[in-house]
């Protein structure tokens, strides 16, 4: 009995290995093609390796960085992701704490609105939101975080509320009786308990912020500021021949940092996602 179990286990491992390799293959294929000369990149030749005369080395990468503005986009994406994430992680726990601890009609209504904002598709608000943003001049990478705070608040408040309902009220009451004001209580008592949830929320929001395409496209001035997803879409959006070489180099330059961050923070990311889902 044991022996057959071992054998079936080995079969499963082999099947999973093949499956994993095919999972990685699409990215590997882009890597191969990003090393080819522009003339050698054809629709039907995507699976073939570059030959010695079509091997371009890092030419496409140099082009992507030097003349396609990749570094600028990387900078904008980083600024937007970091500022929005910081704003969400500072302000949303405060709001969530107030909503769970002060229960009245207003906070209940607010909670319902936050949950609603998670379900409502972006297309519902995209036009009016972009007009509001233009009107308030919230259309640069440096202040678009205000909009992201508003639109990302739903998930964050929902998750923080879910966690806060489970922590006992007595701890906070004790600190209030001991003479802390609510601000001190929040930062010195509540925030330390919130840390694991903050990691989950931070990861989920970062995944969304970094990859978001439509919101920055509609809000930012595309001629001046392009985030990474906008830059990649722009390759096809602009008229004329699509420059496949630099485009694939851009894709690789986008994917590689994500993979590095993922491999470094793998445990936290997977744990964060699992924890976030259980609370949802």
């Amino acid at each position, binding site marked *: 009995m044991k022996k057959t179990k071992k054998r079936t286990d080995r079969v499963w*491992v082999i099947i999973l*290995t093949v499956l994993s390799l095919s999972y990685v293959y*699409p990215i590997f*294929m882009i890597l191969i093609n990003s090393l080819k000369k522009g003339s050698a990149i054809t629709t*039907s030749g*995507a699976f073939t390796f570059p030959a010695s005369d079509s091997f371009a080395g890092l030419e496409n990468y140099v082009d992507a960085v030097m003349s396609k503005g990749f570094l600028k986009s990387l900078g904008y994406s980083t600024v937007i992701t970091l500022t929005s994430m910081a704003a969400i992680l500072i302000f949303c726990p405060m709001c969530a704490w107030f909503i769970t601890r002060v229960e009245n009609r207003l906070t209940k209504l607010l909670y319902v609105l936050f949950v*609603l904002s998670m379900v409502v598709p972006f297309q519902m608000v995209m036009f009016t939101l972009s007009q509001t943003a233009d009107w308030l001049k919230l259309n640069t990478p440096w202040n678009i975080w205000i909009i992201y705070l*508003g639109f990302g608040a739903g998930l964050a408040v929902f998750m923080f509320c879910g966690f806060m309902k489970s922590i006992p009220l007595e701890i906070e009451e004790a600190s209030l009786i001991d003479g802390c004001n609510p601000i001190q209580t929040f930062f010195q008592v509540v925030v330390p308990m919130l840390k694991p949830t903050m990691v989950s929320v931070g990861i989920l929001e970062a995944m969304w912020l970094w990859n978001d395409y439509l919101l920055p496209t509609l809000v930012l001035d595309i001629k001046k500021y392009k985030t990474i997803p906008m830059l990649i879409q722009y390759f096809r959006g602009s008229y004329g021949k699509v420059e496949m070489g630099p485009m694939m180099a851009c894709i690789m330059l986008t994917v590689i940092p994500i993979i590095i961050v993922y491999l470094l923070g793998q445990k936290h990311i*997977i744990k964060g*996602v699992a924890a976030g889902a259980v609370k949802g």
Partner: protein
Amino acid sequence: MQKAMKRYAPLFIMPTFAAFLIGFIIPFFQGIYLSFCQFTTVGNAKFNGITNYVKAFSDSFFSHAFVFTVAFALVSIISINVAAFSLALLLTKGLKGTNIFRTVFFMPNLIGGIVLGYIWQILINCVLSITEKPLLALNTSAGYWGLIVLMCWQQIGYMMIIYIAGLQNVSEDIIEAAKIDGAANWRVLWNVKLPMVMPSITICVFLTLTNSFKLFDQNLALTGGEPNHATEMLALNIYQTFYARAGAQWKGIGQAKAVIFCIIVILISVIQLRSTRSKEVQQ
């Protein structure tokens, strides 16, 4: 305690609330109002009753987008959840290399929809041109299946993680008890494990359902709705109505479509949560 906190209400609530007002509440209600108007900017809205809704319902591209979205959602929900659950079962058996497999399967999730769309466009077009079939831009069924493969590739890992967490919470004792009572492996799976992970199933079906209904980036990048709007899903159809059409009436129609879309998404989310929640067992 409530009293002490209420004095600090502005400080705690205001930052998030102000942003929420700008980022969601105002645009949302303005959007509902504008769906009854003809407009090209928010400033020049003129009330015109339900004309927009009538036109939205009579737009054949919109109804086609609805059918396409439903067909896409059904197949992708089933295939993603079945595959993710099977992988989760395999990866909780204590096989060698479990961690590596888990890492690999989750990875595509971190890559954005636009990038994923282009990666798969290149790959699928290559396969199509080798087999001498029309490319994605002219091939509706390839576009449909391409979207499903892409969606599976991206989402299976995420759902797998949720199922793994759910399966790890099923206590060994219950499984042992079932086995002592003489339950075969498939019975343990069907009558013990499956009911116990029902909360995970609720979440995963909910996530895949809303994700597939709201799908936009992948649709835009992989097929762009080609050929002739045949692979256009609801979100992309609304976007095109807003920004790709000339004429004063289209923005209003787009907004009306968006309201319809919004109601559909809210309705199916509520129905789905109700129906699977009722199957959960109390622990």
